[in-house]
């Protein structure tokens, strides 16, 4: 019912506003943007939200930069790097870079940042991003070595993403709370105002170094938190916002028909999948311990139809337990076409000629989960559908009480298969497969520094996962960006909104 009302109101908003021109705040050189979610803390090590990543890329820099189009790694705060051995990386740092507060960037800052975030006691929120680092040491003012705990070939990818460099003197004094209220980085934008959860104002860093990120074109960025997407659209119509993103596909379609807005759709790394309890953690005799049942689930769902009807945009059917662009996410694997008859046959073969009943859990995108449920019902898999908060589902999952669930994973925009497949198939608490061979192969793939060897072992693991139908991978997600005609922006597939790339027409 709420959807109907929202749809009606949204449509009404669109209809009456057709005649209203939208004015970008080009005159004051201020780009006005809306975030849906309240950001917990601007300090990038103490938040895990997408909005946090967006601010992180604007305010701070990493040692390395990955070109979002070519996926090529180039130096950012480092000018070059080399592997000294399997667990030691040496960086030559860029000279003449200053932080927003005037502090010079040197090896001391890298040493402090790495040693601070690698220490578990300091409570960095997303430990995966940093816990592969052991320590850092200064060789000279502009040379630094980072020591890894173990072999970790994805180090370069992480150093080009979530690992930002902080000013040592300022951070030692301010800590995460201070950094959250008055962030200081070397990035293209400096933060001039923070009202926690409500409002952020950024200003172009006039002294920004010669970074591969490019120089900011728009002087000011004003970001407000507006939780309701209909209100965001109203602000866009009334001319008080210039850019909104994460707009649902049905709303984006309506906005796309209007001349005063540009709707830009781009894929994201988030993959939706069905997790099945093949390890028998939720009951040794549960149907998903049988390969035929898992295959039947894979055959039962028309994933292309889901993509076309619900997700739209640049979403695509995914056959792998990882996002296709990720390194090691090979695509030549067993794929299951939509074939409900075959699904029924396989269920009969498994000893369920009349189907069976199972609990089915989901935590987001209820409409997608419900569509999946209807496909499963059609072949005889009756579901007791339970929609939970993410934390509650996660807890049940860790306790091995979830036979079947619809889940998603965004890989934290890390373009490496280890960020997804290794997260769920290495006998961790969320692994409902627990296949020893897959574990062994992933261990090799995750720790080898030879790219060919990595691909070889990821291929083995992914082939087995898809061949045994341990999961039913579904589709990738997409994001709609909507902006006024005065704004020019080309989104990238890693779902990072880069203010430095936004320009006025």
């Amino acid at each position: 019912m709420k959807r109907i009302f929202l749809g009606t109101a949204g449509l009404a908003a669109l209809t009456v506003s057709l005649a209203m021109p939208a004015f970008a705040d080009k005159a004051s050189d201020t780009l006005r943007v809306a975030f849906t979610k309240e950001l917990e803390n601007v300090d990038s090590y103490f938040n895990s939200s997408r909005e946090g990543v967006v601010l992180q890329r604007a305010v701070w820099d990493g040692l390395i930069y990955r070109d979002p189009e070519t996926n090529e790694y180039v130096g950012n705060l480092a000018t070059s790097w080399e592997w000294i051995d399997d667990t030691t990386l040496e960086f030559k740092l860029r000279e003449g870079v200053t932080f927003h507060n005037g502090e010079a960037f040197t090896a001391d800052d890298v040493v402090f940042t790495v040693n601070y975030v690698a220490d578990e006691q300091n409570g960095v929120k997303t430990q995966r991003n940093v816990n592969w680092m052991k320590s850092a040491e200064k060789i000279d003012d502009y040379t630094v070595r980072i020591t890894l705990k173990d072999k970790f070939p994805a180090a370069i990818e992480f150093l080009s993403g979530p690992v930002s460099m902080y000013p040592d003197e300022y951070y030692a004094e301010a800590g995460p709370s201070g950094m959250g209220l008055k962030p200081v980085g070397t990035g293209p934008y400096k933060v001039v105002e923070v009202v926690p959860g409500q409002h952020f104002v950024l200003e172009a860093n006039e002294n920004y170094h010669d970074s591969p990120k490019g120089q900011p074109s728009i002087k000011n960025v004003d970001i407000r938190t507006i939780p309701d997407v209909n209100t965001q659209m109203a602000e866009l119509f009334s001319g008080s916002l210039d850019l909104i993103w994460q707009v649902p596909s049905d709303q984006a379609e309506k906005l796309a028909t209007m001349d005063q807005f540009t709707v830009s759709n781009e894929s994201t790394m988030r993959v939706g999948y069905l997790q099945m309890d093949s390890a028998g953690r939720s009951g040794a005799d549960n149907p998903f311990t049988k390969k035929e049942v898992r295959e039947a689930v894979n055959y039962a769902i028309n994933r292309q139809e889901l993509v076309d009807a619900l997700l739209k945009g640049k979403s695509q059917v995914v056959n792998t337990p990882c996002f296709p662009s990720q390194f090691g996410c090979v695509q030549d694997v067993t794929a299951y076409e939509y074939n409900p008859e075959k699904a029924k046959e396989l269920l009969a073969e498994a000893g369920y000629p009349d189907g069976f009943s199972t609990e089915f859990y989901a935590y987001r995108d209820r409409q997608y989960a419900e569509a999946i449920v209807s496909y499963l019902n059609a072949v005889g898999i009756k579901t007791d559908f339970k929609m939970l908060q993410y934390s509650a589902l996660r807890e049940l999952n860790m306790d091995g009480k979830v036979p079947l669930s619809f889940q998603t994973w965004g890989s934290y925009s890390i373009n490496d298969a280890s960020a997804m497949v290794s997260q769920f198939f290495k006998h961790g608490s969320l692994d409902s497969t627990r296949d020893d061979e897959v574990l062994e192969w992933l261990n090799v793939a995750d720790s080898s520094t030879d790219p060919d060897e990595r691909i070889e072992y990821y291929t083995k693991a992914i082939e087995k996962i898809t061949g045994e139908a341990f999961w039913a991978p579904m589709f990738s997600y997409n994001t709609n960006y909507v902006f006024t005609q005065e704004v020019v922006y080309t989104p990238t597939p890693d779902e990072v909104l880069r203010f430095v790339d936004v320009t006025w027409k």
Partner: protein
Amino acid sequence: MLPFILKRLGLALLVALTVSFISFSLLFLSGDPAAALAGETASGEDIEAIRRLYGFDRPMLVQYGEWLFAALRGDFGESYYFKLPVQSLIADRLQVTMTLGVCGILFALLTAVPLGVIAAIRPNSIIDRVALFLSVAGQAMPSFWFGLILIVVFAIQLGWLPPSGAATWRHFIMPTIVLGYYAMPAIMRLTRAGMLDVLNSDYIRTARAKGASEGRVMFKHALRNAIIPVVSLAAVQMGFMLGGSIVVESVFALHGAGFLAWESIARNDLPTVQALILVFSMFYIVFTFLADVLNAWLDPRMRSS
């Protein structure tokens, strides 16, 4: 009177404590706070680390006791989510919610009471019918829908008011109307029913027979008695508005305490939720207490009961 007030205050405090304890227990049952805090990208090891860091591995009673003693000293801890002291976070948000709540209840009272009185004086008149229509519409319309319609008309089409935010007094006009309109129907119906009852009673007939002016009959004799249940209702509505203005705050991006409570529950931000529950329950208790005092002033018979 004083022993009565003290007794009531003591009872109120006990209620607040009970509410906080029950909510504390329920929050722990609603999901693993460590998993919620760790976020979607965290691994099992991350969650364990957070569990140890925040002391979730200790018995719940110990955690409650520590929180309570700190709260009594005015320290509500640090928000897990915002990493800011809870008391300053809530103080900021309460300003918005209080402004909205007070404006909303004033709007509701200033429209509902006169309408209810006129509707009772002239039953089945045009005004009575309009009042009835407004009351039914107010109860039937979801707040978020009404809010969006106002935004469409007054912000987008006419361009008179800002669509969202809380920067100026103009930002509060539409949220006040939406929130006030939600509380209005019940107050209006109660005023109308109370007035109808009172107007048909013997003492009103007596007052009229003694030659009292119509204005004196209405305001001195009738309204004063009819308003008593309205005062109690308004107190409850006011408490509701402070805690329950979630939808209005969300639609108009007001970032008040109601929305903060809703979001904090979803994020398992325990210190914030605990403090907010205590604050909201205290508000309810204070408003109910004030309503009782006001009613006792309006009706001296209540003072002795």
